[in-house]
């Protein structure tokens, strides 16, 4: 029996060739697109991973103020960690449009060069140029290349894994290979260049490392942080000035306290000495007065008057004596004596007051001396709390935190996620389409199945029979899809934008094993599952029921439709009858729109990023400072930026706490004085799903602490994950000086010594960086949009065709009655317009909403906000496109109506 049934399979294929060809084409197309998108991404991901292994990619890198000593390097080697010096100079090219080149020595072991063409430089006058910079400046092997007057010959074009994404600074938002590129010269040439005096900026002492000996990045970092240096060793004037102002204040403070203490001690000694004579002075002045009083008394007694003058009575006694005598000469003498005695008394009292004051001074000086001693102790205690020793380590960057490394891979992970999800969506849709076909086949062959049943053919035989064709078709389609994809016919188009942005070698398009399995197994397995489920229920009817092809009116078709005209009634009945196909059409529209919405969200996100970045970035320049001057320039707004991390979906992103003044004109925020209630940027709110009132935590890896905040307000700011705080509150929170800042925002370029800068970000950079997203995503957006339109058309065509085929008997019947083509179209096809129109009105926003919910997960590795707000006009256009496609397909299918002849009704029965 199986043999006979097998023959029917081929006949069935022949009979429904168009149907299966379309289905097969759609599966092949779906597989082709998934394999091409995912395969291209995997090619780049695996290619860069292989290249990383081949060139011995670093595990991380760090920079120091002064090169490590031999013993320090030996210690690190002893930890089992391999180090390689990869010092460099940044050199601004003579022509401004040529940007800056970063001059490295040719690497020996870590991050080795992978030559795209030519060879590594071997001679002193040879240079290897990084691929993207070479492309942007049309540089080829053999060309001359001049840096600061020294002419080199280009020995080859290279890529290096640590500049996969050739960002100038790791904090840059985008790469610009027109203005930056690494170059490589021999060690001798490098040393000669260094000694030539042509260097514009101090050498950067960068070390790369490969972990070993069971040590971790943290172990190495902990060791490096402990390496202290004398600030005077650092050969950077700007650093020295900065250090004097910050870390160098310790010595000044200690010296000042010491001076104060010494001075206080000297004063105390002097006062001591002074107070020692107080008693003698008082005694001597008393004796002088007493001797004068005694001498005056004896003189008066010599005149026969018994008077004894004392300090207390000499004035009154002398006045009385003068009053009692008439001799004018004697009277005048007595008055003179009295005045002299008064002067002496005043002198004595004055000396007493002086000595009393000296005593008080002595007591005060003793107190002052105690106070200065306390000050000295307190200052010493306070300074012990701070580490004023200078760590040699300036930056430490694990490979996983370095956006230059695996930049391509991180970008392409999105494509893998998107491609696989789009594939699953398409397969779900195809599964449903197949089920519609199968149901149609079984219904149209009901009497045959019933007859076979009655002849003893088992359900399993029939099941095998009915699933064999879909399984074969889906398998072959999958095979065709993956084989066509394996030719790499469309891969260059998909990967082109990556090759034009990232600095990577040209990889041969290859399909990973799992995609072969996915392509060859998924479609037939899906066909088996769907068919078994659908056919089983259909084959559960009795043989007689099948032979009679009993048509039961399903509950949902038993509506009484009154008060409508015939055409409307008929269309509604037809829609209800073809509910399965109707659902397939709407589901097809929904799922193809889901695929489309992936593209839309990518596009809208990129577009919104470009638009919002431009709108939200109010500053023209942002200068991130390594060594800020004491006073911020008057034409700049000072701010304090501090980098933390926050995790979402397994990815850890940089979050910047930005301390600003309330009146900062570049940000529309008034942070207030709270340390916990903060304003966050809209990008951060979108990415982390934060709302006002939510609490969240960011991690400070450097200090190994966490900061908890509460969202007070969300401000429109798209270009970065920011937490806005009041700068004074932030300085206090982070233990910085009251005038500390490390970022300057300006509305025009200002003159800052390049040596002070970590990086400069211009508004133009930000906007250009945002546009890069669009450029990178466009191929995928086009592919997804195009394929979703194809999927929609094919599903709509197939399902409308199935609807027509299922109604072939009735169409023949009404032709018998004299219906014309236009009338039949009105009854059987035009009703679908309402399904499509109403379906589109529901499905368009629904698919968008759903995709908006799924999208953040799909691009979880991308550090940007999630503004996927779509203009209304877009929905209007999408709706019109759907309706247009419907009318095109409707027009094509009208011709099919002619295939059903009126005589058909006389041969068959419903």
């Amino acid at each position, binding site marked *: 029996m199986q043999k006979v049934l097998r023959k029917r399979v081929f006949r069935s294929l022949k009979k429904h060739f168009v149907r299966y060809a379309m289905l097969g084409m759609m599966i092949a197309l779906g597989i082709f697109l998934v394999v091409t998108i995912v395969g291209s991404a995997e090619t780049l991901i695996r290619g860069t991973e292989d290249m990383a292994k081949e060139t011995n990619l670093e595990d991380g890198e760090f920079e120091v103020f002064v090169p490590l000593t031999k013993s320090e390097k030996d210690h690190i080697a002893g930890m089992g960690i391999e180090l390689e010096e990869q010092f460099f100079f940044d050199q601004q090219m003579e022509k401004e449009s040529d940007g800056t080149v970063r001059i490295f020595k040719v690497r020996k072991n870590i991050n080795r060069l992978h030559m795209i063409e030519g060879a590594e430089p071997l001679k002193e006058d040879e240079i290897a140029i990084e691929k993207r910079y070479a492309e942007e400046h049309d540089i080829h092997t053999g060309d001359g290349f001049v840096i600061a007057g020294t002419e080199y010959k280009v020995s080859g074009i290279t890529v290096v894994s640590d500049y996969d994404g050739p960002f100038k600074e790791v904090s840059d938002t985008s790469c610009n290979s027109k203005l930056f590129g690494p170059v490589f010269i021999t060690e001798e040439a490098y040393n000669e260049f260094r000694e030539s005096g042509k260097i514009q900026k101090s050498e950067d002492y960068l070390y790369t490392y490969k972990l070993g000996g069971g040590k971790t990045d943290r172990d190495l970092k902990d060791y490096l942080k402990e390496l202290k240096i004398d600030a005077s060793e650092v050969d950077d004037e700007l650093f020295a000035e900065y250090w004097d102002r910050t870390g160098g204040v310790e010595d000044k403070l200690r010296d000042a306290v010491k001076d104060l203490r010494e001075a206080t001690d000297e004063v105390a000694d002097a006062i001591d000495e002074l107070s020692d004579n107080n008693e003698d002075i008082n005694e001597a002045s008393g004796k002088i007065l007493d001797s004068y009083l005694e001498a005056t008394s004896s003189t008066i007694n010599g005149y026969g008057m018994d008077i004894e003058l004392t300090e207390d009575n000499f004035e009154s006694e002398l006045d009385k004596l003068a009053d009692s005598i008439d001799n004018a000469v004697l009277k005048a003498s007595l008055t003179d004596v009295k005045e002299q005695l008064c002067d002496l008394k005043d002198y004595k009292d004055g000396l007493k007051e002086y000595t009393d004051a000296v005593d008080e001074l002595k007591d005060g000086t003793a107190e002052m001396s105690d106070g200065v001693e306390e000050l000295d102790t307190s200052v010493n205690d306070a300074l012990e709390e701070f580490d004023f020793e200078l760590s040699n380590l300036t930056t430490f960057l694990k490979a996983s935190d370095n956006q230059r490394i695996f930049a391509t891979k991180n970008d392409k992970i999105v494509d893998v996620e998107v491609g696989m999800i789009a594939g699953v969506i398409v397969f779900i849709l195809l599964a449903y389409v197949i089920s519609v076909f199968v149901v149609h086949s079984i219904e149209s062959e009901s009497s045959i199945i019933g007859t076979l049943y009655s002849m003893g053919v088992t359900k399993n035989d029939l099941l095998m029979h009915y699933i064999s064709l879909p399984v074969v078709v889906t398998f072959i389609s999958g095979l065709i899809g993956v084989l066509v994809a394996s030719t790499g016919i469309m891969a260059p188009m998909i990967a082109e934008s990556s090759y034009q942005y990232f600095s990577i070698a040209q990889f041969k398009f290859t399909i990973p094993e799992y995609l072969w399995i996915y392509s060859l197994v998924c479609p037939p397995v899906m066909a088996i599952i769907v068919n078994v489920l659908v056919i089983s229920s259909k084959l559960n009817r009795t043989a007689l029921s099948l032979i009679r092809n*009993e*048509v*039961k*009116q399903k509950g949902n*078709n*038993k509506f*009484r*439709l009154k008060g409508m005209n*015939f*055409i409307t*009634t*008929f269309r509604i*009945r*037809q829609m*209800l*009858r073809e509910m399965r196909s109707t659902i397939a059409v709407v589901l097809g529209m929904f799922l193809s729109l889901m695929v489309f919405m992936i593209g839309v969200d990518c596009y809208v996100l990129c577009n919104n990023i470009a638009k919002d970045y431009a709108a939200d970035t109010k500053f023209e320049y942002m200068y991130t400072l390594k060594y800020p001057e004491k006073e911020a320039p008057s034409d700049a707004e000072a701010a304090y930026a501090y980098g933390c991390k926050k995790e979402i979906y397994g990815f850890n992103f940089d979050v910047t706490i930005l301390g600003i003044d309330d009146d900062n004109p570049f940000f529309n925020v008034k942070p207030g004085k709270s340390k916990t209630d903060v304003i966050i940027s809209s990008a951060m709110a979108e990415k982390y799903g934060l709302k006002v009132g939510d609490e969240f935590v960011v991690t400070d890896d450097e200090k190994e602490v966490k900061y908890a905040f509460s969202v007070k307000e969300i401000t429109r700011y798209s270009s970065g994950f920011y937490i806005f705080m009041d700068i004074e509150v932030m300085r206090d929170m982070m233990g910085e000086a009251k005038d500390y800042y490390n970022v300057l925002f300006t509305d025009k370029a200002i003159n800052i010594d390049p040596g002070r800068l970590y990086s400069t970000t211009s508004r133009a950079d930000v906007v250009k960086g945002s546009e890069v997203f669009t450029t990178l995503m466009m191929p995928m957006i086009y592919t997804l949009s195009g394929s979703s339109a194809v999927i929609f058309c094919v599903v709509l065509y197939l399902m409308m065709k199935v609807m027509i085929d299922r109604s072939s*008997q*009735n169409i023949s*019947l*009404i*032709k*018998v*009655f*004299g*219906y*014309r083509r236009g009338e039949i179209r009105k009854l059987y096809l035009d009703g679908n317009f309402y399904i499509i129109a109403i379906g589109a009105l529901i499905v368009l926003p629904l698919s968008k909403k759903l995709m908006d919910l799924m999208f953040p997960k799909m691009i979880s590795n991308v550090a940007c906000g999630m503004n996927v707000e779509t203009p209304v006009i877009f929905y209007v256009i999408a709706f019109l496109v759907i309706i247009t496609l419907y009318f095109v397909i409707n027009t094509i299918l009208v011709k099919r109506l*002619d295939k059903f*002849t*009126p*005589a058909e*009704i*006389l041969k068959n*029965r*419903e």
Partner: protein
Amino acid sequence: MYVEVSNVKKSYGEGGSYVEVLKGVSVGVERGEMCVIQGTSGSGKSTLLNCIGGLDDIDSGSCKVDGLEIAGLKKDKLSDYRRDTLGFIFQFYNLVPNLTVRENIEVCRYLTKDPLDMDELLDTLGLKEHADKFPSQLSGGQQQRTAIARALIKNPKLLLCDEPTGALDSKTSRDILILLEKINEKYGTTMLIVTHNNSIKNMVHRVIFLKDGEIAKQYTNEKRVPARELEDL
């Protein structure tokens, strides 16, 4: 003659599978007549009906209805002919399963500007209480009556019936035949009835016997037996 078929030939297939179904058939039916076409399986009776109904082309000959030559008419004209002139009744009713009785009748009512009164027709055919039922909820006789109502709603001049009682029991068959007879009398509808049933020939005006694609015999009933009196249905 209202229906005038002259020397109609019709064949199917090619080479070894070539079959000449009608071999120069000529018949005529007057307006208002009920005519039965009888014959064994493969005699060509259904093919003849299809040719008259414009459902099938003829190879040669002439087929006129009310003076209109059917042979060679283009599709649109054939559609017009069918919608303006014909009504069809089939052995297996061919009702649209997802339409109610009323809606099935509406299918043909839609095609004419001057239809019969729907309620009166439903009443006449005993379908009033079943008007909102679906075919699957009706008996075979009720379904066939619905099919008749559908054919009659546009008041056709010529009613083509292909085994109208073929799927019905004896009592129901009689009811249907009585109905057809009544319609013929009431509306003067010309009827061509293809049937295996030998008794039906007694109730009609004209009887045509086909054998192997040729007219074996044709005659006019001098004395018709009313449908209700027919035996061995």
